[in-house]
């Protein structure tokens, strides 16, 4: 990396600076920087799924049909009553086993299947997951967990949409379904944004758990790069530097939080144009 710089530029730095620049731009470090993509994909993918689950959850919660309402309330309560780590580990494992169960029924010999004492019943039914598979599952499980939080936010926001707006729409002859989608859902975003921004912050922080799903994310790379580095040919390259790498991650997440705050503040200002919300007038 450093070799690509023109001589006059690299000549500006002292030998010490040059060697540390070379160190933090070596291949492994570049792989570390590149692994930020997993964090960002999981955060954005998870947020998308979370909003979808939030919409469905909120719709279920205010459904007039009892079983639907119960499902919605059960979903939001159970997820909030149990640590997110448990769900983030549980969903991928459960999904993997479900797939392997159906795979086993079709590929394993019936007698092997009946006598099986271990999982999966036969070698052929083993599903080896790639990083992409795990990443998709991470998005979905983050989405399910934080969808419950989003469902609460969206449910509250839908209640905050002025009744008059909905009544006016109904009076104009819109069907209940149209009133829901074209007025309630359209208008609730402004009321939901502050809550959703909080959910986003939680989700962003939860993306640090990706390494628990065998994804070589920034946390795992930090551990690898930071551990004491010893080569028999050169001796000790550096002692245990993990704290430095974790400190960088600590700062990284704080900066991400700051940027998110700025982004949501701008979004809020844009979304509430022309609306008279409490405190704005």
């Amino acid at each position, binding site marked *: 990396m450093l070799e690509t710089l023109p001589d006059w530029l690299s000549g500006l730095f002292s030998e010490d600076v040059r060697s540390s620049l070379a160190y933090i731009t070596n291949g492994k470090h570049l792989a570390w920087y590149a692994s930020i993509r997993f964090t960002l994909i999981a955060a954005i993918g998870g947020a998308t799924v979370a909003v979808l689950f939030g919409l469905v959850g909120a719709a279920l919660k205010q459904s007039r049909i009892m079983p639907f309402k119960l499902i919605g309330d059960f979903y939001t309560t159970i997820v*909030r009553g*149990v640590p997110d780590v448990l769900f983030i580990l549980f969903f991928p494992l459960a999904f993997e*086993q479900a797939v392997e169960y159906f795979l086993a029924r079709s590929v394993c010999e019936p007698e092997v299947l009946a006598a099986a004492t271990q999982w999966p019943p036969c070698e052929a039914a083993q599903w080896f997951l790639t990083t992409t598979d795990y990443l998709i599952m991470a998005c979905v499980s983050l989405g399910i967990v934080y969808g419950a939080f989003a469902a609460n936010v969206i449910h509250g926001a839908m209640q905050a949409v002025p009744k008059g707006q909905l009544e006016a729409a109904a009076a104009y002859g819109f069907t209940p379904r149209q009133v829901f989608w074209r007025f309630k859902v359209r208008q609730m975003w402004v009321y939901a944004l502050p809550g959703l921004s909080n959910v986003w912050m939680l989700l962003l922080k939860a993306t640090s758990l990706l390494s628990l799903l065998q994804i070589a994310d920034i946390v795992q790379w930090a551990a690898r790069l930071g551990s004491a580095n010893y080569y028999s040919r050169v001796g000790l390259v550096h002692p245990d530097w993990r704290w430095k790498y974790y400190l960088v991650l600590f700062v990284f*997440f704080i900066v991400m939080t700051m940027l998110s705050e700025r982004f949501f503040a701008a979004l809020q200002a844009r979304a509430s144009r022309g609306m008279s919300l409490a405190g704005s007038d």
Partner: protein
Amino acid sequence: MEAILQSAFVQDIATLARPALFNLYFALASIPVGFPLAVLLALGKASRFKIISRLSRGYIYAFRGSPLFIQFFMFYSMMLALNQAYLKPWGIDGVVLHPLFLGPMVLVLNTSAYGAEIFYGALKTVPKGEVEAASAMGMGRWSVFRSVTWPNMLRLAWPAYTNEMVFLFHATTLVYFTLPVVNEQKDLMNKAGELFERDYNVFLHFSVAALYFLVLSILIFWLAGLVHKRLNQHLTGRAEKIRFKPGYIR
């Protein structure tokens, strides 16, 4: 009866009882220290002295803005880096590096930041009239705080702080994902994971672990509800009812 006792579900409940104590220990060891620290930080953030206010604000922002998972790794590796030079010579490495000490320590640092934000919010909503009335009565700053600001702040913050305590209890799962497991000292997730690796029955073991978390969360909630009732006993009928909503506060 015999069949029920022998069932895998009941067996799991029995096996996971001891690990549940570790989660409870981490929460119970952190709350008594985290609570006063949170109050101090909240007062610091509201302080008139710029330096104290800035420092508290920065601390709260940093610990709320970064994942607890990273905080655990960071403090553990920092302690390891200090081990040879300081901890070992002083003979305290066995204690400081032990997860039963380091776990609550990091949890305290984390929860005091979240708690401080809650108490700061409450401090800002303490009725101004009551504070002014107390000063007008000739009460000093300390007695105004003790008899007006403090009880009001605690009362207003309690529902949100209850949620924070439940969240802290959930966060105890991260301790053994980041710190070394000593002997058989395993918490719920740890033990559930171990049971899972034996028979790959993810639905049973994780559900029982989830059940423990749910029941203990409700227990914490119920106990905090009793305190809430006591804090609001002078406000018959007016008090906001406490709700199980560890929602989007954290």
